[in-house]
């Protein structure tokens, strides 16, 4: 190779690269006809079978878009008809009769009938089933096909929760023909059918022309997975995404609020964020200590500091938007002096030291530091141990090897976990168990609310955990996008009512 040629080749290469770059940067950002929606999500679902996994991301793609249940949860959290247009409860409360929608077909053309309902529910509750929410079906004794459009569900004990339980993503109706391949090619009865999954990147769905209900206005939608908050922000601001219904970076919300191109929707979720305590460990065995800790934490400062003001204070393990909510936020007001008194009374005048294991979400990592500083003021020294999610599940949740942890419980209506024999709080109260037992067999709504309120009171009096705040759902979307849910009474991004205002 001669000297000239080496040099000129290098120059040529550089010049060529510059040309390619110039050519490539031209066409981006052209206007498109808006009958489609691109929607951002933080986590990618592991698979798309809502009946075989706990990941909320599965429901955030498929629930009510691809799959439907007998009943559905509406935007306000109420139970509404879906594949069942109505239902009756027998006098003794032991049999539910569901009347099904007519002329429903699955996306592959298979007609839907009562047999599919029996198949789906029996499959979910079967021994060896990998349904993540099997307790939802615990009260069911038998599913009986009356005729192709009618199904009876017989119970072992009366259950006031059945219609609500059947509205969960884990209880959606699948076809025996496609049940096994739903993980990768979901086939449901919903208004949208599955098109394509580019793993690590996005899932595409499109309008299903054979849908039994009202046709949605969107003809296409894509769910894109962006876990990095900076990238999520850039994707929204640059217009690459139309909506981010659960936005991951609360610190940027103010910037979106100031920009007229965007609508910011702060709603509620079912996520009770708690400082969980191991009720059988050291000083935490003592109720007075747990109450002292409840007094020592400034919850509003925590919401402001860790969540940029997004979040609602709670006093117990219950969502404030529910009609049976018992407002106990006044039970343990921020009062370090009172906390010290209680600690002294319990025999820990000099405080003690303990560990605080924090899973990855922002609310836990940021909140943990503020809580540690609050507790230090009353003499409790916390050693912060950050853990990954998988490690949290195994060390904290399963082996209960922890003193304190922060986590958000996002399952709807999950106060019953306090009655479980082995649950990671290690809380054991006969009084509470009795209330829950009675609740499970009560069908009368008013009586149920009364019992739920009692249950909330008991765990708060016992200060099982410190109830910090209800996680907010901070959504950001293009101001012209209408019809997305503001609240999140259950995981899901129901696109059936979504449309563009300027069309």
């Amino acid at each position, binding site marked *: 190779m001669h*000297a000239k040629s080496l040099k000129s080749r290098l120059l040529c290469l550089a010049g060529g*690269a510059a040309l390619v770059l110039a050519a490539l940067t031209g066409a*981006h950002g052209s206007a498109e006809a808006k009958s489609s929606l691109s929607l951002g999500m933080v986590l990618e679902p*592991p698979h798309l079978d809502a009946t075989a996994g706990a990941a909320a991301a599965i429901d955030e793609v498929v629930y009510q878009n691809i799959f439907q249940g007998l009943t559905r949860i509406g935007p306000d959290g109420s139970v509404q008809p879906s594949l069942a247009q109505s239902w009756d409860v027998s006098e003794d409360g032991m049999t539910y009769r569901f009347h099904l929608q007519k002329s429903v077909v699955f996306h592959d053309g298979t007609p839907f009938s009562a047999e599919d309902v029996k198949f789906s529910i029996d499959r979910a509750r079967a021994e060896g089933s990998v349904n993540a929410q099997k307790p939802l079906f615990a009260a069911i004794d038998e599913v009986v096909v009356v005729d192709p459009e009618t199904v009876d569900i017989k119970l072992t004990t009366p259950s006031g929760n059945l219609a609500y339980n059947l509205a969960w993503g884990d209880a959606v109706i699948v076809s025996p023909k496609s049940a096994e391949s739903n993980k990768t090619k979901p086939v449901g009865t919903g208004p949208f059918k599955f098109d394509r999954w580019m793993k*690590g990147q996005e899932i595409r769905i499109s309008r299903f022309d054979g849908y039994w209900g009202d046709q949605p206005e969107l003809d296409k939608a894509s769910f894109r997975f962006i876990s990095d908050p900076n990238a999520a922000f*850039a994707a929204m601001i640059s*217009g690459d995404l139309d909506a981010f219904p659960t936005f991951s970076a609360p610190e940027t919300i103010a910037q979106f609020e100031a920009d007229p191109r965007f609508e910011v929707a702060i709603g509620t979720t079912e996520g009770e964020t708690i400082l969980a305590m191991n009720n059988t460990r050291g000083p935490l065995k003592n109720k007075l200590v747990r109450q002292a800790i409840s007094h020592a934490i400034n919850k509003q400062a925590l919401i402001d500091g860790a969540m940029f003001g997004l979040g609602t204070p709670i006093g117990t393990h219950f969502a404030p938007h529910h009609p049976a909510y018992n407002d106990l936020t006044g039970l343990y007001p921020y009062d370090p002096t009172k906390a010290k008194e209680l600690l002294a009374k319990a025999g820990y005048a000099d405080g003690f030291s303990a560990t605080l294991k924090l899973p990855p979400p922002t609310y836990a990592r940021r909140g943990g530091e503020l809580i540690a500083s609050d507790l230090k003021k009353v003499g409790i020294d916390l050693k912060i141990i950050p853990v990954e999610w998988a490690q949290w*599940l195994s060390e904290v*949740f*399963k082996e209960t090897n922890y003193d304190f942890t922060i986590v958000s419980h996002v399952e709807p209506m999950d106060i019953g976990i306090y009655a479980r024999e082995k649950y990671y709080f290690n809380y054991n109260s006969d009084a509470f168990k009795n209330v829950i037992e009675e609740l499970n067999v009560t069908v009368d709504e008013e009586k149920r609310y009364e019992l739920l309120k009692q249950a909330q009171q008991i765990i708060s009096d016992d200060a099982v955990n410190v109830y910090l705040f209800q996680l907010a759902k901070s959504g950001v979307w293009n101001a012209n996008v209408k019809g997305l849910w503001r609240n999140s009474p259950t995981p899901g991004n129901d696109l059936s009512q979504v449309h563009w205002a300027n069309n």
Partner: protein
Amino acid sequence: MLWFAFLRLIGLLTTLLAASLVIFVVLEVIPGDPAEVMLGLNAQPDTLAALRAELGLNAPVTTRYINWVLGMLQGDFGISYTYSVPVAELIGERIQISLPLATGALILSTIIAIPIGVYSARYHGKIIDTGIMSVAQIGIAIPNFWIAILLVYVFAIVLRVLPSGGFPGWEVSFFGSLQALILPVVALALPQASILARVMRSALLDVLHEDYIRTARAKGLSNKATLWRHGVRNALIPVLTILGLQFSFLIAGTVIIENLFYLPGLGRLIFQGITQRDLIVVKSSVMLLVALTIFVTFLVDIAYAAIDPRLRRRV
């Protein structure tokens, strides 16, 4: 030469086997049960047992290790716990992004670095040299994720000429896919280019003190011709070594960039696999990267031995 290559090959296989054992054991001992991660807080013990059986997690450790290694030898990387598709398929999809990304960054950094390094060496000690080397120093110090954020801000948010991230897929839009790789490639290339420019400069300065350069000059060759014909060509050898090292580094180093630009590449696959405890995906993709790195090193070794006979005796 053949004997040398044979010995190197034996070494390579031993290293691969050792690596597979280390990867397997490390992933065995880290806490976190894949079945628990998949089923979440409400899972019942019998559900967990059913899933564990489905995933084949109940077999003895040794059986699982042997099955894994034997499977890989036949090109079977297992089935992903979470995605329920063959791992080989996942890796195949992801490599279509990671490979162009790493290769693009390597080429771009070379194109930037070589002329700059040469220029700097030529004006060694002058203000221009000091200036370029200070900039290169900054380039090394600034992490590539910060460069990435700056690039996104300028080109996607302010100028709106390039996408802020994502990847349409080669078969969907070739043009769009190229576009999507521009900013990530630049973000990856700039720090590498800074390192490479410094290496090029110092290698060239070393070479310029050699006797054959003086001879070339004595023969009456111009400064410029000496520099390019004898200097640059000889200085490229240490630069190629660094390039070889950078390639494996780039493949692994794409994790952050792939996250920032939400590109579905191999780095992000491993990252996701770890958080979701999709151990089979992590094991197999890490093994693939290790094999790739070892293989590149092997090729470099062989190439050196081919060029420089003295090296063959130092086995």
